[in-house]
């Protein structure tokens, strides 16, 4: 019997469950390595060479090099792990979150100051806004 995953119909959202975690294990553990200052320096000096030390898929490596966080998440990345890449780049959590929404940094910040993204129209995939 398959597991019930009622969160699959939440729009613009990927739930980091055990299946995603399995998919993203090495990607996330690479991110974890960036908690050490010497690893951040080595990564910044040669990103590709550093990524090649990890048994990640080529797709995952390309997503990291492109800083495409949506792609990273689709490939099993978790935002709290991916945040280590942002920290290495000197980005704030708000800049990282905003980068996934198709908005500019300023638009995203303004939306948050105005009360955030509305829940209306954002509960179910295909829901009328």
């Amino acid at each position, binding site marked *: 019997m398959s597991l019930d995953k009622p969160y699959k119909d939440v729009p*613009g959202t990927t739930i980091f469950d055990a299946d995603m975690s399995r998919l993203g294990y090495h990607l996330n553990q690479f991110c974890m390595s960036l908690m050490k200052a010497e690893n951040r320096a080595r990564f910044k000096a040669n990103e590709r060479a550093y990524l090649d030390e990890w048994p990640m898929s080529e797709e995952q490596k390309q997503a990291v090099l492109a800083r495409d966080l949506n792609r990273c998440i689709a490939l099993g990345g978790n935002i*709290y792990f991916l945040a280590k890449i942002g920290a290495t780049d000197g980005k704030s959590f708000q800049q990282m*979150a905003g980068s996934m929404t198709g908005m500019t940094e300023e638009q995203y910040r303004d*939306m948050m*100051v105005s*009360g*955030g993204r509305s829940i209306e129209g954002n509960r179910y995939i295909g829901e009328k806004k």
Partner: protein
Amino acid sequence: MARISASVYTSHVPAVGAAIDLGKTAEPYWQPVFKGYEFSKQWLKDHKPDVIFLVYNDHANAFSLEMIPTFAIGTAAEFTPADEGWGPRPVPKVIGHPKLAAHIAQSVIQDDFDLTVVNKMDVDHGLTVPLSLMCGQPQAWPCPVIPFAVNVVQYPAPSGRRCYMLGKAIRKAIESYDEPLNVQIWGTGGMSHQLQGPRAGLINKEFDKAFLDRLIADPEGLSAMPHIDYVREAGSEGIELVMWLIARGAMSDVNGGKPPTVRHRFYHVPASNTAVGHLILENN
């Protein structure tokens, strides 16, 4: 015997920690957030506990994907603030209470909650930001703290019901401790927020306000809320709110006592990507 005198609930947004550490609390963006905690800082001075039992979640700092404990109790003598990638926060190290923590672990595990016992771990903003919000920038935190980490990073987090029942078991454990300690239990995280995907930035004020109302008046009913309601209504990271139910389950009224006094309630949007909620409930 030890007793639980009060519970405190607060968001633990990392940017709040950065605002404190970088001296930005008086800036127009941050001022309304910190104003909501002015009362709380004075209240904590006037009601200084002997120990804080602090429920929080680690954000891929102490725990990577190598080990994912659902409930982890910190039994060490001290805990170092983690380097989360931006360098460690310039805050005091956290002094634990190994004796009480070990007592709670033994009692709660025998009550069917299978805790992971952690004798060495760093603590991240999930634990240190609530301390900063409630204490400001002291040279040392006002009392020992028992860190209690809950997995809300890899789905599924424990259910609200499980958290609520665990709170009751923690209360029973604390009340069976021989020394007359005044213990506060804090539940942290939330409120509505989503940090990932095209839906990032989601805030649901109606959900948050109803959650605060029900946490005060109907925690039993609130504990039955399924995960999907948190995810859909409060955002993928809003599920952190289940941790508030651990603290609430440890209060007197849901264990045969009197209703608590709502000493303070505060709500503000935004702090970075997140809605900030805060409550202080005193036992009577």
